[in-house]
């Protein structure tokens, strides 16, 4: 396997003109965020340090937080932003050569996939223990940083909360035919399906998927387009995460949609997390640890509660007042690390003909 790729690599080496000839060491992360020319920046003093984070969460959401971290600790952050799946595939492709120190992902499944390849190192217990067991890896390779609840978002012109069923299974009733929107390619949705399989068993999960599919749901590319469709009245309900609507309300307070939270351990009440892990190959593991620690600090947790409207996961920080508390939601009893059986979920979705 090495030989053909090495040949290709040679070809690449031969043709690229290295304008950047200064050695950058094994971690080519020496350019500062505003350095557009690819020139090596002046070397940093070792004690301040730099930490490289691959963020599957967008700069809009976490950029300000990372700046606060630098202010608080003096540690510079090199951030690479992308889609969570893209960043996970990037780390998996880089393997042991990854320049990343920290992986910050939008859902537990991606963290699980990277951990499964042995690319994440165990986090110190004092960090793990800040967060409820349900929201971290049982083997300690990643920790949840903020919580995101699955909700049913509904159009308030078409429906009131009383019209909505108590269980996610209620939506398989034919009265919902043509009125549902979903985003089956979305990571959060797939995590929910995995949870459904874990909680209700393979057969019930298939039954639910087939039941919804029979109601001819509209298929959206992601949570935002699905939310748009609910607001516009294209569909009456959609299965998404809770904070998309909160965000939209901030831009336009008059939108005609509301979140409906399922309760009592219903699979539809799943609370997933965005979380972080430290790469096994990190050469700045102390700075990396400090970054993860900061994400679990009161400041950062407050930021998630107020800015991204997610659920803070440490004791003593309260979620946004408009959200029901995690206790009220009563998320199903499930280990989020069990959500790493993505292949099984993909297979099921493909068998039912959804993907």
């Amino acid at each position, binding site marked *: 396997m090495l030989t053909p790729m090495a040949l290709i690599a040679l070809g690449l080496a031969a043709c690229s003109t290295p304008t*950047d000839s200064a050695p950058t060491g094994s971690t080519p992360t020496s350019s500062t965020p505003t350095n*557009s020319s690819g020139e090596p920046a002046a070397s940093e003093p070792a004690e301040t340090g730099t930490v490289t984070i691959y963020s599957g969460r967008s700069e809009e*959401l976490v950029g300000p937080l990372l700046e606060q971290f630098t202010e608080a600790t003096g540690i510079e952050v090199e951030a690479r932003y992308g889609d969570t799946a893209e960043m996970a*595939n990037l780390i998996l492709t880089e393997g042991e050569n990854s320049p990343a120190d920290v992986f910050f992902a939008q859902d537990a499944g991606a963290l699980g996939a990277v951990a499964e390849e042995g690319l994440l190192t165990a986090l110190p217990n004092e960090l793990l223990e800040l967060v409820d067991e349900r929201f971290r890896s049982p083997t300690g390779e990643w920790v949840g940083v903020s919580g995101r609840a699955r909700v049913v978002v509904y159009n308030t012109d078409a429906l009131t909360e009383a019209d909505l069923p108590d269980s996610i299974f209620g939506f398989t009733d034919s009265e919902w035919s043509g009125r549902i929107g979903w985003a089956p390619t979305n990571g959060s949705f797939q995590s929910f399906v995995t949870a459904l399989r874990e909680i209700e068993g393979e057969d019930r999960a298939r039954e639910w998927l087939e039941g919804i599919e029979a109601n001819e749901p509209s*298929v959206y590319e992601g949570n935002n387009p699905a*939310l748009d469709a609910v607001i516009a009245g294209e569909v009456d309900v959609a299965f998404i995460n809770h904070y998309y609507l909160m965000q939209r309300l901030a831009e336009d307070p008059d939108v005609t949609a509301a979140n409906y939270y399922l309760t009592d351990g219903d699979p539809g009440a799943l609370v997933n997390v965005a979380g972080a892990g430290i790469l096994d190959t990190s050469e700045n593991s102390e700075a990396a640890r400090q970054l993860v620690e900061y994400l679990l600090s009161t400041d950062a947790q407050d930021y998630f509660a107020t800015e991204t409207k997610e659920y803070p996961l440490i004791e003593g920080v309260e979620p946004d007042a408009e959200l029901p508390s995690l206790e009220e939601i009563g998320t199903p009893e499930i280990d989020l690390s069990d959500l790493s059986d993505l292949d099984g979920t993909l297979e099921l979705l493909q068998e039912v003909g959804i993907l």
Partner: protein
Amino acid sequence: METVAPPPAAARSASRTPAPPAWLIGAGVLVALLGLLPTGYLLVLGGSSENALSLMLRDRTLSVLGRTLLLAATVTTASVLIGVPMAWLTTRSDLPGRRWWTILGILPLVVPSYVGGYAVVAAFGPRGALQSLLEPFGVTRLPELYGFPGAALALTLFSFPYVVLSVRGALLRMDPAYEEVSRSLGRGPWHTFFTVTVPQLRPAITAGALLVALYSLADFGAVSLLQFDSFTRAIYVQYRASFDPTLAAVLALMLVACTAGVLLAEARLRGRARYHRSGAGASRPAATVHLGAWRWPALAFCTLVVGLAVAVPIGTIGFWFIRGIGAGEPLTMVLDATLNSVVASGLAALLAVLASIPVAVLAVRHRGMLAATVERATYAGFALPGIVIGLAFVFVAARYLPWIYQTLPLLLVAYLVRFVPEAVGITRASLLQVSPRIEEVARTLGRPPSAVLREVTLPIIRPGLMAGAALVFLTAMKELPTTILLAPTGFDTLAVRIWSATSEGFFARAAAPALLMVIVAALSLGLVLRQERDR
């Protein structure tokens, strides 16, 4: 050129094709090898998959592939039907405001696929702007947008400029003598257009159509927003849902195979005729056609096309902008990102045009197996989704070339691989219109081949090179996955900014970078056109 007798000299030179100089072969082969790198990576990866065959032959895989090919064929046909008249009107006719229509007819290329997708849904969706406009007239339901029709509409609107750019270059350089002869022999203007002009445009039309077809195969953003289940989506599902790159590689290899099929079809369509001018090398502009009363339908056509492809996305961005200001959203400055976008896309454009020259010279002047292989190899990556190209370079560079990994030069090489076909097509079509006699004269006067290329051929085809550069510049500026995966860490571009904001639903914050991108694109097109006029 079935209907016009080929220049008498053609037959004479067909028998002897001079052997290409070694540096030309070397340069061409290098570009080809780079172009094949992603495919090599896929073969290594996909070859290790045990389920490869069962995945490839699954009913669903095949039906999605069939549908995607049908979509590509539809979009290509529609783009030719829009692009050729648009190019002709803006180069040959006295259409009022020609120069503006030229810019507006190319501008849609810079609209990122996902922004275009959002715009089409916002305008023509079941509850979109058009529907609410028509509501008072009793229209409660528009024809179904989602699925095939919407995907075809969006892709056509944002890729027909490939045809415009390619065809307008050919029209500008075309020897008007053939058309004049046809007219003087009593053929009417329409008859002349279809029997003389269009056949001469064949290489340019097929070059543009080829790019449209491959682009439609590769696009992800617009088609998924319009709920069309495309083959690229199937590839993304593998990456996203199972984090298993081997199955994704198997599917991507099927796209490479489709590319090969499309290339063969193109080779048949473009034919083997010669297209260069019959007489002296000096370019003579064709007479302007007076549209007369046809001006009105022509204007209506341009207005409709530009309205859909430019006004709809800009209107959508403007709506985000205003809604954002209303909600007190701060206007973030994005100067760094703008500069990065311009620098990276500008260098990519330069590199791609340079790389296209040896490939095109080989293909046109030294026909044969080698030239054909080199030319086709450069296209191998164009139908691949950006994430595949990006990960291929990650794989190679992170492992074997850590000193170049996550630097601007590597990003530029990846851009080069991704976009060189755009430049190859136009450079090739331009070169076909240059008579080899001119080069031979320079050779007999004692100039070596490299000097002839530099001092004679390239200056003649400069408009084509500029058009190719413009094409690469616009498309590189909106490129997302390769940028995200390969740019130096922290290297922000406008496309990254727009995506980062829209992906979280911060549409207001996406508005400023999106508008800036359109402005930069329009300015750069204006510059290119000014150069053209100054000649």
